[in-house]
């Protein structure tokens, strides 16, 4: 399926860019007329994935994070990737409450939050090469009346 719109963003793994990444994802996705709640779901999941790339992927270094958003008729696919440390055991990492950084007061709930607010979360990772998290969500917008002139 061909996306109706697509964007790619690259930014540095600085914590001040967490809010920036949320704004960018929300601004792009809002072209599909999601509800306010759906948009907040996306903001939350993107924040988790980007924060993970900064904290776990690059740890104390500054690296580049890539976010690709693809919009379809009524759904979105958001790919967030780093070329950082990678994950040894993805299944373990995705367990609720599992964190490799309890000393940093991480709750181990990042992946669980992503899964709660998105329809599907896919994780690909290779130790030493990096991690790609893909978030999928379908919106209810197709069922709501659309302001046609504004598209």
């Amino acid at each position, binding site marked *: 399926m061909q996306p109706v719109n697509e964007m790619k963003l690259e930014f540095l793994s600085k*914590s*001040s860019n*967490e*809010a920036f990444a*949320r704004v960018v994802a929300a601004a792009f996705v809002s072209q599909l007329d999601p509800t306010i*709640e759906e948009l*907040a*779901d996306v*903001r*939350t999941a993107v*924040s*988790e994935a980007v*924060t993970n790339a*900064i*904290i776990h992927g690059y740890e104390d270094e500054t690296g580049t994070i890539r976010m690709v958003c693809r919009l379809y008729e009524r759904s979105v696919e958001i790919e967030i990737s780093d070329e950082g440390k990678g994950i040894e055991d993805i299944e373990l990492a995705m367990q*609720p*409450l599992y964190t490799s950084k309890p000393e*940093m*007061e*991480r*709750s181990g*709930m*990042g992946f*669980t*939050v992503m899964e*709660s*607010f998105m329809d599907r979360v896919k994780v690909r990772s290779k130790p030493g090469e990096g991690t790609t998290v893909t978030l999928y969500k379908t919106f209810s917008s197709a069922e709501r009346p659309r302001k046609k002139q504004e598209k």
Partner: protein
Amino acid sequence: MDIKFTNRGSTLIAAFSGELDHHFAEYVRNKIEREVIKATTRDVIFDLTGLSFMDSSGIGVLVGRYANIRKLGGKAAIICSNGRIRKILEISGVLKLMPVYSELNDALRALSGA
């Protein structure tokens, strides 16, 4: 992101506003710790009403502060009206540690009453 403190007897009310994420976690943590160790503080209420955004980094902040408050012999409660933030508190098990209320008065009553 901002955090404001008021005292009601020995209860410290920490009122958050703005967006709480990893970027602001350390700032918020330090601010709260400074207030919690004061002799005047026993119990703490985290008032999340003013937050427009919180992700799981906020959970880390709340759970970490909760542990310290308990060590100092105090209790803690949360005020939260935002459905999404409440869901995050719920799935992460925070609600098993601290009760959550919609109104400040209910939280104050619960802390003093128990």
